[in-house]
């Protein structure tokens, strides 16, 4: 465990290694690679509320603002030279076009002065309308490879999103469920960063074959710190 000092104050974060590369799991759900000054966020699902509203479910229109606010805070904390948005950045292909002007400006301000990589996801198979940044399918940095959907079988150094991992423990008759980073040291699946995104238990079948079971650790997101929990303590659904 290490203390990361940033402009936003002192936050206990967890330092881990994926395929030998050092990385920091931030309690916000972002991953920071200090060697490359690279910040990774996954599954922002911006404009999810309006995507539902279009179909008649009037979810609160505050998700984009909330997600951008948290994104601004974590960027401010680490001051990265580059940001990778690991796919499903918008909830649907029209999301960027629907985004209210004020939010667009806020996002542009965050992008200014740093490299920005949009990785394509299943929800956003096309580049976001009217936004700068590099649009890529995958991105390789050192021994790491960033892509939205985890590939089948072993994939040393893969950082992916898509699955919205969450974990559950039971202690003293109470159950606690949180979003988490899931990793076995070889591969890492990122938690969803968006504020209206749910989780899928890491023991669900969808994760089958992704991790060496005995090496799996769920880095569960707390309010102010990240809790590493070994696979043996995790409970399904």
């Amino acid at each position, binding site marked *: 465990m290490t203390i990361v000092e940033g402009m936003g104050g002192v936050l206990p974060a967890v330092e881990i290694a994926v395929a030998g590369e050092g990385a920091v799991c931030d309690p916000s759900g972002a991953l920071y690679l200090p060697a490359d000054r690279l910040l990774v966020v996954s599954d922002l699902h911006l404009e999810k509320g*309006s995507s539902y*509203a*279009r179909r*008649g*479910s*009037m*979810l*609160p*229109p*505050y*998700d984009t*603002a*909330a997600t951008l606010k948290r994104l601004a805070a974590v960027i401010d904390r680490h001051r990265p030279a580059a940001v990778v948005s690991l796919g499903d950045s918008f909830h649907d292909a029209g999301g960027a076009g629907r985004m*209210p002007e004020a939010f667009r400006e806020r996002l542009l301000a965050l992008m200014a002065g740093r490299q920005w990589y949009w990785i394509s996801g299943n929800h956003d198979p096309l580049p976001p309308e009217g936004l700068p940044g590099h649009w890529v399918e995958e991105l390789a940095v050192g021994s790491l490879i960033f892509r939205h959907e985890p590939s089948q079988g072993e994939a040393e150094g893969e950082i992916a999103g898509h699955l919205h991992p969450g974990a*559950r*423990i*039971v*202690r*003293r*008759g*109470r*159950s*606690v469920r*949180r979003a988490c980073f899931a990793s076995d040291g070889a591969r890492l699946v990122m938690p969803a960063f968006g*504020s*209206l*995104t*749910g*989780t899928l238990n890491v023991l669900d079948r969808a994760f089958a074959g992704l991790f060496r079971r005995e090496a799996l650790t769920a880095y*569960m997101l*707390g*309010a102010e710190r990240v*809790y*590493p*929990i*070994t696979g043996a*303590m995790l*409970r*399904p*659904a």
Partner: protein
Amino acid sequence: MTPIDGDSAALLPAPFREWFSARGWTPRSHQLELLRRTGEGRSALLIAPTGAGKTLAGFLPSLTDLAGRLKPKPGEPRRGVHTLYISPLKALAVDIQRNLTQPVDEMGLDIRMETRTGDTPAHKRQRQKHVPPDILLTTPEQLALLIASADAERFFAGLKYVVLDELHSLVTSKRGHLLSLGLARLRRLAPGLVGIGLSATVAEPDALRRWLVDQTQTAAMADIVTVAGGAKPEITILETEERVPWSGHSARYAIPAVYEAIRRHKTTLLFVNTRSQAELLFRELWHINEDNLPIALHHGSLDVAQRRRVEKAMETNSLRAIVATSTLDLGIDWGDVDLVVHVGAPKGASRLAQRIGRSNHRMDEPSRAILVPANRFEVMECRAALEANYLGAQDTPPLGDGALDVLAQHVLGRACAGPFDEAEFFDEVRSAAAYSGLDAATFSRVVEFVATGGYALKTYERYARIRRMKDGRWRISHPRIAQQYRLNVGTIVEAPMLNVRLTRQRGGAMRGGMVLGKVEEYFLETLAPGDTFMFSGRTLRFEGIRENECFVTSAAGQDAMVPSYAGGKFPLSTYLAGEVRAMLGDPERWRALPEQVADWLRIQKEKSVLPRRQDLLVETFPRASRHYMVAYPFEGRLAHQTLGMLLTRRLERAGARPLGFVATDYSLAIWGLEDMGGMIRRGVLSLAQLFDEDMLGDDLEAWLADSWLLKRTFRNCAVISGLVEKRHPGQEKTGRQVTVSADLIYDVLRAHEPDHILLQATWRDAATGLLDIARLGEMLSRTRGRIMHKDLERISPLAVPAMLEIGREPVPGGASESLLGEAADSLIEEAMGGA
């Protein structure tokens, strides 16, 4: 039997008079009275105990009217529905149809009757729309669907009667609110509509009378016809040589005596309050069932097929006893039950009366009932319920204001039927009793909510579900909205449930096996593989969860480790609570109690004190290395739980370092590290301040922010109001996923728009529901200046029951963060070898 007088001869058409006399029957006076009043076009409420011929009475006005109807002339447009019957249970609608068919056929009347429920096939529903039956028997949800359809106006134009069965059980719930709005709509579609309410005895019949009629005129009331109760039931409290336990709910001590009672009667109905009690009682009875008597189990979580088998066996009188929860509370006929046994206290006097009514369906013979208290407080509660029964006292809950989420659903339904004018519709809504106090501003906010979500941030105008047209009326923006509405109608939001499947392989592949029923997800969440629990009359070993199913193996012969899951627990009624307090404070009344219970109270009086009826007793004492504070408000578990949450926050601030608390129906025990009794003596801690009503302000607000209770309530409001969609079988969105997303929505909404109308609706629900704040507030104001403190050297007799509960259930509260911390730390401990 009195001969029919001239008056009734005029009321009853010939075929009816002949039918009655052919069977050697005479119409009962209440049946004729109801006929007379409704014949004059007035709505009426019929209050009658079970077995009084309520159903026939309710239908006589409609049947006689239909019998006198002329044959349709050629070319006359098809007639709509003449009579609508609405019941809370699908099964009841089917049962009533069967019971009515006989007299209708025997009198040779040309009347078409049909049921319409969720089970009615689509083609039949379609046909009913085109060729409506004379009498349609249905449920509140189906009524909501019917009035939301574009042809509602034509369908209901000829409606003359609406018969509302088991009205007392409907009106206090959100289903009742929906029905109340539906009834208001029907009155507009069919002016002159006569409402007939059928109800068991209730505490405030006037509330039901208002409920039945248009409230545009303040406090207008329907007529009332009351049938005096038949023979008084014979109720006894089980007497036994065995020791009555101090606490717990199992009543194990009484099992042999209960078994004896079953042996001595033809058919016994055994009622309990929770499903876990039902499971336990059922198993214990079979343990000693040496005569192999056919004893069955019936509760809401069991597989439907299994329940139907039990019900069939009941009808044919092939069972000797049946253990049931509230699933058997309502009026379906169950053959020849000659004894009702209530295991555990009934929690309410009216509930007891209704349950006893399940036995002996002939009014002139007394029902027999035995009450079996599970612990010493319950002895007093049973005694109070028994006395209430002889006094005819009732404690059915007050009706309460209509919920806003239900109103939102109704507004969308109204728009689906056709364009509406807001002001006119507002008047209609206020004519419903449940919404008569609604103000125009709130109504407008609900309409806005239906249109665009009602958010302060107006970004959804272009996606609006309903829009105001040029003429000022509202209409749906797309036919798709009406389809969505139809899929989401109703107010019953099921807690996420998982199928329980019995497999053979332990720890092996989880697949196949028989489905035993369904269990709430929140119960399963606390289980680890290998834990044993009781369900469907068996002890089961939890193996794991896969997708939406829970897999178990048989653990026959083992004791269940996980004691309970409390599905369907009723809080102690205010009336019975008051009676128990009165009994406690009046030694004269102890004579009616068993000696061991009276002794217990005498010793309490010696060692501590017994509070008078209006007082609140608070005891403090040390035990082991802890200090305890036990309060005795007698306001039911929900209110005590809320009180416990709030008091521990306050004690924390006062420096008493509380560690936890446990709430029962009768008392609340808090323990901590500091000597709270000493703090009060020294004047560092003031009980008056500690129990001040202002705890319902900021403290409550702060605690609620993160409470799962509020989240669960919000989830229901979100589904009912149409903010999130209801799940449907086979759809990818399972109930469990709804839970997640509703929680997320709740967090976002609380952070960004804490005044949102749906949060207000949630708060109102919680105040009367899971948190029981209303009752807590009444208690705090009642006991102001009447708190008796007793600082003791050791535990008092009265405190024992609550103290015994400590450790039986997980301590509520406590941040989940600290549990995560513990889990993470145990890892470090493991790494450091426990050093």
